[in-house]
C-alpha cells in the first residue's frame, strides 16, 4: 500500500491526443489534459458532450480511437480495467445484488488476494457511516446509502485515481447537496485524485478544484470554478455555467488598458485583459448579479460605470434573497438582472423604465459567436 501511496503522489493523469469515434460519430475529439495528483477534478457538460466517454477511457472500459492515457509515469492505454490503478463509482452504483454490503466493499481487496478483509471493510464502512449495515443486501438500502457503499467499495482499494460517473444523479436535491459535501470531505481526508463527471454546474462548482467544461467532444475551458464563472472564454461557458447577458460589440478604441466598445449605440468599457477576443468584433458579457438596476428618473450614476439606458422591466420575480428582473433593451434583447433585496425601490415594477449599470471590471469579452450557445444545454439538464 505504501508503494501505491508513493506512486499516488506523482500520480498525475495525463491524456495525450485522446479521442474516440464510433463509426462516423466523434464522441471525443483529440484531447490533451493533465489532471494533477490529489486534485478534485470535474468534467462538466451536457449529455452527449463526451465527458462520460472520456472517463470510461481512463477507467479502461472504452478503448480510445487515438491517443494515450497515463497514470503517473505509466502508460495504461492498453491495459484492461482490472489491471489499472483506478476505481470507478458508477452511475446508479452497479452494486452486486447477490452480495452483502460488506462483501461488496471487500470485493476488490479479495480479488487482489487480501486474506482477511474484515477489519479494512469495517473501517471503510465506518468512514462512510454505514458500519451498522454491513450485513444488509444493497436492495435493502436507500439511494443515499447505496451511493456511499459504491464510494466505499471503490475507495477501499486506495486507487491512484477515483472516477465518479454522475455519482449523485439518482439522488434527490437535498440528499445530493449533503453528499456533495460528504464526498468533498472524503476526498480531503484520503487525498486521492477524484475525477468527477457531472452535468450539474452547481455540483461541479461546489466540489471541484478544477473544472473542464466539455462541449461537442472538446474541452471548452479549463479552470477553477471562480475563473470559469468570472472570466468565461466562450459563449458556451458563459451561458452553461450560470447565466450571462451577452451583447455584440465593436471595438472603437483603446485607453488605459481598456477596450472602448460600441454596443448597439452605447459606449462601454472593458479591461483588455478580460477579453478573450482578438478582433474588432466581440461579444461583451456581464453576469446578472453584477448589474445594478436604477429607476431612470433619478439616475445619478458615476461616469466610470458602464450604463445602458432605455430598458423597460417586463418581469420581476421576487425569490426571497433576491429579485430577478427581466429587462427589455431598446434593441429588443432581454437582459436578466439579480438584485439583492436590501433597499428595494418600489417603483421597480413591470413597465418601469430603468438604467442598467455596472463596474467595467466585471464585464468579460468573448469571441463573436452564437449568443445562445449553451442555454438549451443548461436548461435541459436543469429539467
Amino acid at each position, binding site marked *: 500500500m505504501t508503494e501505491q501511496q508513493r506512486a499516488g503522489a506523482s500520480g498525475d493523469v495525463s491524456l495525450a491526443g485522446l479521442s474516440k469515434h464510433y463509426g462516423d460519430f466523434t464522441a471525443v475529439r483529440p484531447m490533451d489534459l493533465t489532471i494533477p495528483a490529489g486534485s478534485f477534478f470535474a468534467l462538466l457538460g451536457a449529455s452527449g458532450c463526451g465527458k462520460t466517454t472520456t472517463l470510461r477511457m481512463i*477507467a*479502461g*472500459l472504452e478503448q480510445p480511437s487515438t491517443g494515450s492515457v497515463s497514470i503517473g509515469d505509466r502508460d495504461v492505454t492498453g491495459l*484492461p*480495467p*482490472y*489491471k489499472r490503478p*483506478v*476505481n*470507478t463509482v*458508477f*452511475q*446508479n452504483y*452497479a*452494486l*452486486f*445484488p*447477490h452480495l452483502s454490503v460488506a462483501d461488496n466493499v471487500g*470485493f*476488490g481487496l479479495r*480479488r*487482489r488476494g487480501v486474506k482477511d478483509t474484515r477489519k479494512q471493510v469495517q473501517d471503510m464502512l465506518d468512514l462512510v457511516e454505514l458500519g451498522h449495515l454491513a450485513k444488509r443486501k444493497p436492495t435493502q438500502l436507500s439511494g443515499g446509502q447505496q451511493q456511499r457503499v459504491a464510494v466505499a*467499495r*471503490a475507495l477501499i*482499494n486506495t486507487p491512484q485515481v477515483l472516477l465518479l460517473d454522475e455519482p449523485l444523479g439518482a439522488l434527490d436535491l437535498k440528499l445530493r447537496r449533503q453528499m456533495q459535501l460528504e464526498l468533498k470531505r472524503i476526498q480531503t481526508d484520503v487525498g486521492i485524485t477524484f475525477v468527477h463527471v457531472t452535468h450539474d454546474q452547481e455540483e461541479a462548482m461546489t466540489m471541484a478544484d478544477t473544472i473542464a467544461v466539455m462541449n461537442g467532444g472538446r474541452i471548452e475551458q479549463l479552470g477553477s470554478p471562480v475563473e470559469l464563472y468570472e472570466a468565461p472564454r466562450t459563449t458556451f461557458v458563459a451561458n452553461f455555467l450560470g447565466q450571462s447577458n451577452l451583447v455584440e460589440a465593436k471595438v472603437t478604441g483603446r485607453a488605459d488598458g481598456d477596450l472602448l466598445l460600441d454596443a448597439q449605440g452605447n459606449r462601454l468599457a472593458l479591461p483588455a485583459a478580460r477579453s478573450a477576443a482578438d478582433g474588432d468584433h466581440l461579444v461583451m458579457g456581464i453576469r446578472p448579479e453584477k448589474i445594478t438596476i436604477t429607476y431612470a428618473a433619478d439616475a445619478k450614476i458615476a461616469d466610470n460605470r458602464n450604463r445602458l439606458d432605455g430598458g423597460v422591466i417586463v418581469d420581476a420575480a421576487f425569490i426571497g434573497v433576491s429579485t430577478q428582473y427581466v429587462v427589455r433593451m431598446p434593441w429588443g434583447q432581454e437582459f436578466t438582472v439579480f438584485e439583492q433585496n436590501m433597499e428595494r425601490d418600489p417603483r421597480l415594477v413591470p413597465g418601469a423604465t430603468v438604467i442598467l449599470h455596472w463596474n467595467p471590471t466585471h464585464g468579460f469579452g468573448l469571441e463573436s459567436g452564437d449568443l445562445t450557445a449553451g442555454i438549451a444545454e443548461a436548461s435541459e439538464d436543469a429539467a
Partner: protein
Amino acid sequence: MSALGTLGAGTTGGADTKVTEPKRRGRWVPYALLAPGLLWLVVFFAIPMVVQGSTSLQTGNLTKGYDLTWHWATYWDALDQYYPQFLRSFGYAAAATVMCLVIGYPLAYAIAFKAGKWRGMWLVLVIAPFFTSFLVRTLAWKTILADNGIVVDVLNKLHFTNVTAFLGLTQDDRVLATPLAVICGLTYNFLPFMVLPLYACLERIDPRLHEAAGDLYASPRTTFAKVTFPLSLPGVVSGTLLTFIPASGDYVNAQWLGSPDTGMAGNVIQTQFLRVLDYPTAAALSFILMLLIVLMVTAYIRKAGTEDLV
C-alpha cells in the same frame, strides 16, 4: 393468495369505521380472475388425481370389474418390481439435465451478451424445433444415430464409443437402442426448456455489473465466477427443473431410441395402462413417480435456496 389476503384485510378495516361508506365495488374481481384457472385445475387435475388415487387402491380385473379395497400392497409390489425403471428414469433425466446445462448455458450466455442485434433470430432458432411434432423429431434421431450413419461412424473412428461402452452407455459399437441414445434424445428435446429460462435470467443482469467487477480487479473469468454465474442461479434452477421433471416422466425417447433394457418409468406406466390393462398398478406407478419427483425437487430447491425463484 396474497392478493386475496390484502383484500380481506382491506374490507375489515373499512367495516371498523362508523361512517357508512358506499359498498366497495369490484371485490369479486380477483375471484373472477382466478375462476378459469381454478376450474381448469379442479376438472383436469384435482378430480383425475382423486380418481387415479382410488384406482391405485382397487383390486379386481377387467371382466369382473374393480372394487376399492384399500389394497396398499399394489404400491410395494409396483416399486419392488419396477425400481430399475425408476432408477433409470432419474438417472437418464439427470444426465440429460446436466447435458442440457452444459450445452444450454454457453448458448444462453452467447445470446444474452454476444448476439447483439441477432438476439431475436437466435431465440426463434431455439424454439424453432417446436414447430415440428415431438414424435417426428424423436424419430429423426433414429436416422441420425443409425448403425451405418455418419455420426456413429465418426464416433467409432474417434473411439468415442469405446469410452461410452466402458461407462455402460453403449454396446457393440452402436448407439441406437442404448442409454446414450435415450439421453441424447432427452437432451435434444428438452434443451429449449433449459435455454429459455437461462436466457431470461442472464439477459436481466445489468452489464454495468460486469464493468464494476472488472473495475474492481476481477479478470473476465473471475467476473463470471463471482458475479455472472451467481446472478444466473435462479435461471439455472428453473432451467434444470423444467428439464428434469418432464424428462423423468418421458417415455417417447426410451421407446423409439432405446431398447427393452432402457425402459423408463414412463414406459412401464404406458405399458400397464395400455397393454397389460392393469390399471391399479399403472395408477400406483404414476403416483410413485409423482411423489419421487416432488421429493427430489423439494430437496433441490431447499438446497439451492433460491428465494428469488418463487
